[in-house]
Every structure is written in C-alpha cells, then in structure tokens.
C-alpha cells in the first residue's frame, strides 16, 4: 500500500472578471495639474524606448562631430605655424654634417632643444582675441614667433661650437622667414568656425526647426495614429489639454536641447575654443526662452495644417528673414531679431551680428515671453473651436 501523497501546491488563481474595485468608491479630481502629470508621464515614457533614445543620441552627436571637424584646435594652428621640431632638427643636421659628422650626444642635445622650445611655444602661444582687428592679431602672432626664435638662438649658442652656430644661424634665419610668411596665409579661425556653427547654424536654424517639428507633431502624430480620442474624451477642457501637451513636450525638448548644447560646448572646449565660459550663460539663457517660443509657434502651425513644416519655412522666410531685416520698428515682429539683441550683450557673440545698439537684457527676454504667450494663446483658441478628428481631417 502506498502512503498518501501530499496535495500539490496551489497554483496562481487566474484573475476573475468583475474583480475591479466596487463602483462608487472613486473620487476623481480632474484638473490642470493632474492632467499635466499624466501627459508628462506619457510624453517621456514614450520617448524613453531603446530605439528612440538611440536615434536621439545619434542625432545629437551629429552637430558636435561637425564642430569637432571644422573647429581646428589652437594647438593645430600653432603647429601649422611652427612646423615639426623633428623635421627642422633633421634639416639642420644635414647642413651641420658638412662641417664633419655630428656626435650622437650633439644630435640628442639639438633635438632636445628644438622639441623643448616647440612645446614651450605651443603652450605659451596666445590666440588672437576673437574681436581683435586682423592687423593687431597678426602683430601679436609675429611677436610670439620672434620670442620663439630668440629663445632657440640663445640656447643653441651655448650648446654648439661657433662653426656649428654659424650654420644654425643661416638655417634659422631662413626657417624664421618661412614661418613668418605662413602667418599671412588665410587660416580657418577656430573661434569663428565654432561660433558660426553654434549660433548661426544651431541656434538660428536647427533649434527653431527642431522645435517646430517636435511641437507641430504634438497633435498631428496622435491624429494620424488615431490615439487622440483617448485624450479628447478625458475630463479635461480642450484648452487645458493643449496647455499640458505643450508644456510636457517643451519640457522634454528643453532637456534634450540642453544636453545638445552641453555637447557642443564640450566639443568646443576640447578644440580649445576660447571664451566659452563667458558665452555659455547667455547662450543657455537665450535657449531657455527661445525653445518655448519656437515650440509654441510649432504647436500653432501644427494645429493649423498638417503641412506645418512648410508653413514654418514660409514663416521663417517672410517674418524672420524678411520683416526681421527691415530697418524700422516693424522688425520687432521677428523673434530672431530679439535673440540677436540678447546675444549683443556678449562681446564674442556680438561680433557675429554687428549690432548698432545693445538693448538691456530683459527687453529681448520680455519679447520672447510675449511671443510665446501669443502663439500659445492662438493655439488654445484654435483647438477650442476646431475639430481634430480623422473624419474631419479627411473633409479638409
């Protein structure tokens, strides 16, 4: 007779239909803050997938790569002027060998002097100020080159025989002349390259387009995916829905663009671009106000038409590039004009625009706030009265 076996352990009981909390227990309090919390959760969660983050990161590294390639480092510029110490030393050995073979220790000493003075010069070399006139910049460079020449001659005089020194003098005279002539060559200024990419390309082109694309798609993408109905049928007003969607998307976008800016400044720092510490605060301040303004514009254009990118380009050409350049007060309609006014408060950025006057810092900031409020207000009004539904869109 077999002993009775113990009963098998209980398995998980499958959920039963009707196991929801009893009805009538819920005290819901819908409102703007609750909606903002929910929409923010949906926004960042939606972007935080491995695929989405990978693409975002790849896109964010694109511009720093361009900056790295185009903004030549300060060391590279000095190297272009001074040449390579090993090559100079070898050319000198060739000439000195005509007097008799050079002893190995003499070669080592001369090599050491050349290399040592080269590194010393690279480290001590001062780049011309970004706002310095060309002539002044040239004179400064020539002074530094003369200093390098003087030090090298002084050390060689003590290290070689008089006969060898005469050969060196002839060699160095020609070498110095060649190097001084390279100062006249047009050279890609690392600061100019960096600031043009940072401000003209990134801040005034990439940033507005990214904001317009991202915020124009807030409702368009949901409409296309037919998921807008889930939000439109929630107990929040249409105005509140627009505002919370806008805030959530703009907040997410601001974080991404802040990271992008940090990467750009980091790349500039690696390439030895001067005065970054002075530029960064005003640049970040400008971005902090520009992103909401461009985003509100993108939101409005997205609510007007599904071809909001085309509308954004038209707006850019007409208002920013057209009206913004008319030398009367009408150019205050241009947001870029206000941002340029803001940047005029920084010497390094001001030279990009040559502003006639430098207004107080709060004036352009106030203009950006007003622009944001106007665009957002129009978007809210439009969304309150216009239908956003697949069928209604097909009609349009």
């Amino acid at each position, binding site marked *: 007779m077999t002993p009775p076996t113990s009963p098998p352990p209980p398995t998980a009981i499958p959920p039963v239909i009707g196991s929801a909390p009893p009805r009538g227990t819920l005290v819901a*309090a819908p409102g703007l803050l609750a909606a903002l919390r*929910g929409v923010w959760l949906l926004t960042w969660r939606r972007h935080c997938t491995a695929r*989405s983050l990978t693409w975002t990161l790849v896109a964010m590294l694109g511009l720093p790569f361009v900056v790295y390639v185009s903004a030549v480092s300060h060391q590279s510029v000095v190297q272009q002027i001074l040449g390579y110490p090993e090559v100079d030393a070898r050319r000198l050995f060739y000439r000195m060998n005509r007097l008799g073979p050079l002893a190995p220790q003499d070669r080592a000493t001369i090599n050491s002097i050349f290399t040592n003075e080269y590194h010393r010069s690279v480290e001590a070399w001062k780049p011309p100020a970004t706002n310095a006139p060309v002539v002044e910049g040239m004179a400064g460079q020539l002074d530094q080159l003369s200093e390098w020449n003087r030090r090298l001659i002084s050390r060689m005089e003590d290290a070689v025989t008089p006969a060898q020194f005469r050969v060196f003098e002839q060699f160095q005279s020609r070498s110095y002349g060649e190097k001084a002539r390279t100062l006249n060559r047009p050279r890609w200024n690392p600061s100019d390259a960096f600031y043009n990419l940072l401000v003209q390309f990134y801040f005034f082109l990439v940033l507005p387009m990214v904001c317009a694309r991202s915020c124009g798609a807030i409702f368009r993408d949901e409409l296309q995916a037919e998921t807008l109905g889930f939000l439109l049928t929630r107990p929040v007003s249409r105005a509140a829905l627009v505002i919370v969607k806008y805030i959530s998307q703009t907040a997410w976008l601001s974080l991404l663009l802040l990271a992008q800016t940090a990467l750009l400044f980091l790349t500039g720092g690696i390439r030895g671009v001067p005065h970054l510490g002075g530029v960064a605060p005003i640049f970040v301040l400008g971005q902090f106000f520009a992103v909401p303004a461009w985003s509100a514009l993108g939101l409005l254009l997205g609510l007007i038409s599904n071809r909001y990118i085309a509308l954004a380009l038209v707006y850019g050409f007409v208002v920013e590039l057209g009206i913004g350049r008319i030398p009367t007060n009408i150019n205050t309609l241009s947001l870029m004009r206000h941002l340029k006014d803001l940047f005029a408060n920084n010497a390094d950025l001001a030279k990009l625009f040559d502003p006639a006057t430098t207004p107080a810092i709060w004036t352009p900031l106030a203009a950006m706030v007003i622009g944001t409020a106007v665009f957002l207000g129009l978007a809210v009004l439009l969304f309150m009265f216009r239908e956003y539904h697949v069928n209604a869109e097909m009609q349009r």
Partner: protein
Amino acid sequence: MSAIIQAVELSRWYGIVMGLNNVSFEVEAGLTGLVGPNGAGKSTLISIITGQLQPSSGVLTVFGEKPWNNPSLLRRIGYCPEGEAVASELRPLEWLRGLAFVSGIPAGEIESRCEAMLDRVRLPREAWRKRLGQYSKGMKQRVKLAQGLLHEPELLVLDEPMNGLDPMGRQEIATMLKDLAAQGVSVVISSHILAELESLCKSIVVLNWGRVLASGGQKEIRSDIKNWSEELAVECDEPEKLARCLFDAGALAGFDIDPDNGVLHLRVKDAGNFYTQWTELLLRSGVTVQGIRSQSRSLKNIFDKVTA
C-alpha cells in the same frame, strides 16, 4: 425611464459628404446597440456622443448636456474607439497610469485601479511587460476597454469592441458588459457582430446612409418590420403562375424562382395587407401550395432588410 442620449434633428456633414442626416432618437439606460453597415454613420454618432465632433445642425445631449468641450460630462463617459490604435511605445500599465492621471484619479489609487482594470478585461499578467505595439489585435482591444473603464463612467461608449477577439474573448467581454449594465452603467456598443448584439442589447438603433432606420427595443423593431417588405419562400407546383397572380394584384415588390428546387421567393410590399389578401389570392391563382416559410425574425434578418 428618462433618456440618457437624446438626438433631435441631428446632422453632420463632412464637406459634401453626409455623415448623419437629420436623425432623431433617444437612448435609454442599459445596453444599446448601434447597428449599420460601413459608412452608416455609427462612428460619427459615437464621436459626437463623446465630444470629439460637433453636430453641423440639430442637437445631441448626453445626460441632458452637450458633450463638446464639457469636462464635467466627459467625466461620466468612457470611450473605447474602433481600430488598433494604442500608444504602441508604452506598456499597458504605463499607458493606463498616464490616462488615469489625466482623468483625475487620486495618485494613491492609480496603481491598484490600473491593475484591477487589466485583470478585469483578462489581459494575462505575463503580457503586461510587453509594449502595446507587440500586442495582438485582441489584446489591444482589452487594453482599450480597460482604459475606458478606468474612471468609473456612467456611460460606456464602445466602437466595435469585439473586433479581433476570439469567441471566448467575446463571451467574456459580453459577460462583463452585462455585469456593468447590472451595476447601473449604460453601454452604447456599435458592432457588425449582430448575433452578439441581439443577445446582448436591450435596444437597438439601426443606421444606414446617415439615417436612423429603426430604433427601440428588439420587439418594437420586429413589430415595425411587419409593415416593411418581407420575404416568403413558397413551395408550389406552378411558381410562375402564382408569382404572376400576386404581381398582378400589386402585392409583390419582387420575386425569384430557385432554379434548383423551384422554390418561389417572394418579396412582399406591405406585409400587413398581404396576409389579409393571401388566402383569396391563392385560391384565385389555383396553384397547389406544398409549404410556406417566412424568413426568421432574427436581428440579422432585420438588419439585412432595412439596410438592403
């Protein structure tokens, strides 16, 4: 019982396309089916009920209020749209959590409520870790239904909710809807699965080409149909002769003779009148009749007739 949804001369155009054409009807509490072929106006009507569209003319009220931009009313309505559209990048709990916050559910209750709703629609817990984009059509339907139930609506509006569900799933959802109705929740459900609506819904609204063809309880619709065109299958020795006789008397809208078995299919013009004349007409024709079958009065037949 007072109506929860009232439409008075409601019309909705999309440019020159008519979505709803001057319809008036009432929906009372309980389970109500919206029946109609594609393009009948069901989704338009549901979109107006849930405040996504506005009427072009006429008035529609839900619980006595207009739904457009009316948060206090939307608090009482739950909605499950047609199609497979979901936030495909999110997991079900993440999506429900976000929507629960928007619905104003207290933060402390959100987690338990979302889980309870997913259990309620019988979404397997193993699937909760997957993103919605990886779900089958049936699983998406369940999650969509769960989001509609999150905030305890008094009226649940479901657009084709049975699509993509297997027979067992349909049965489960039907049971759940009956359970909700028993708890006092009104449900408006549109579907092409007529057999299920017939067994599920107390009343039906039949739509076609933007018009309400019939509305009310199933009994009312069946009695209405007596006055409409009806089909009879008659087995007799001389079908052509009988058809000619009935046609001459003006009782038929049309007829067919089945070439295989010679059965005469009659489409009667006025069913009420026809049956009072039938015996006399039959005697006058002199045809020997072996059998008469009326088409069944299932909802499907009614639907087929009124939307034909």
